[in-house]
């Protein structure tokens, strides 16, 4: 892993890199991809062998079991022959048992050997899987770096094509501030307007209640004039 980090670092900090240059050369990537492929192939082969070996082990284990049962059975026979004082028959049975025990020892040996192989194959597969995961992470690192660079170049080009540079931070800040001011002004204006409107509403209520600013109406004026005349 560290080698990829190093390479990327060197490439990125070098500063001599032209826009569009690959960070890690295509050959390097191809080597990674080949190693991933090889490891995958190895895993496939190892898995196939593993199934075979496991099947053979199961066979041998079953034989051991069968032989054990047979041995127990024959031991029973031998005991019965001895009980009948039939020494010759017992000896025959004992001979058979000895044969079976040798056979069983041989099969048990096979089981042990195959167990060893299974462990080995499993370790092999694990190692290859770890290698693949590592390489894939490394590849992702390189590919992401390249994608981001390409994306950035496209964005810069695209913005340039629309006759502007990527916004300078200062200009962006100015625009944001202006917009915030405008928003605040609008809010303030809204508050003032709302206050006026609500005042108007209050006036209307006061008027309706006859408390405030009753409007002059003709009959009231006429009444006043008449009252003036008479006085």
């Amino acid at each position: 892993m560290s080698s990829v980090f190093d390479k990327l670092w060197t490439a990125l900090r070098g500063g001599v890199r032209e826009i569009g240059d690959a960070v890690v050369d295509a050959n390097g990537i191809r080597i990674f991809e080949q190693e991933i492929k090889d490891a995958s192939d190895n895993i496939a082969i190892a898995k196939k062998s593993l199934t075979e070996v496991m099947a053979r082990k199961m066979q041998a284990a079953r034989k051991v079991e069968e032989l054990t049962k047979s041995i127990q059975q024959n031991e029973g026979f031998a005991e019965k022959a001895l009980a009948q004082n039939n020494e010759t028959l017992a000896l025959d049975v004992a001979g058979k048992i000895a044969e079976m025990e040798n056979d069983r020892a041989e099969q048990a040996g096979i089981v042990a050997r195959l167990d060893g192989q299974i462990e080995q194959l499993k370790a092999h597969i694990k190692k290859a899987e770890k290698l693949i995961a590592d390489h894939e992470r490394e590849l992702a690192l390189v590919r992401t770096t390249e994608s981001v660079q390409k994306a950035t170049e496209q964005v810069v080009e695209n913005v340039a094509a629309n006759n502007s540079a990527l916004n300078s931070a200062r200009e962006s800040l100015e625009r944001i501030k202006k917009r915030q001011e405008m928003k605040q002004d609008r809010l303030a204006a809204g508050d003032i307007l709302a206050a006026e409107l609500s005042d108007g509403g209050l006036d209307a209520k006061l008027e309706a209640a006859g408390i405030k600013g009753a409007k002059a109406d003709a009959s009231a004026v006429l009444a006043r004039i008449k009252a003036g005349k008479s006085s």
Partner: protein
Amino acid sequence: MNQLHELTCTLGEINFEGHTFNCLPIKGSQQVLQVLVSELDELPIYVTITDTQMLCITYLCHKNEVRDDKRADLNTSMLEMNVAMPLSSFAIVEDYYVVFGALATTSSLNDICKELVTLAANAYDALEAIEEFLN
């Protein structure tokens, strides 16, 4: 291709926490989608999908816009801020200071929207925070 295209179509019709999204695909060999988050649209977000992740990037400023005598301070400040900033991180890409967020390619639409809105807000805050370092 499909994923970004799909995203463009979906985002256009969404209202997420009061924000809408204005999407514009950017031409080129690398798939890039420009996203403007309403109310926070001064700094566009550029979304690009790689083998392993979806990257959302906003460009804060070019290295040249930073005062020479303040550059080291800015770098340190950004590193110190990085962990606290929700969902986003600072970085430098091709001489641009950026704020970015990375998502798994399997992220839900809700996750993506959350990411975009948070990133846009972070970028605004970051821009204000780096003002003192600018030329």
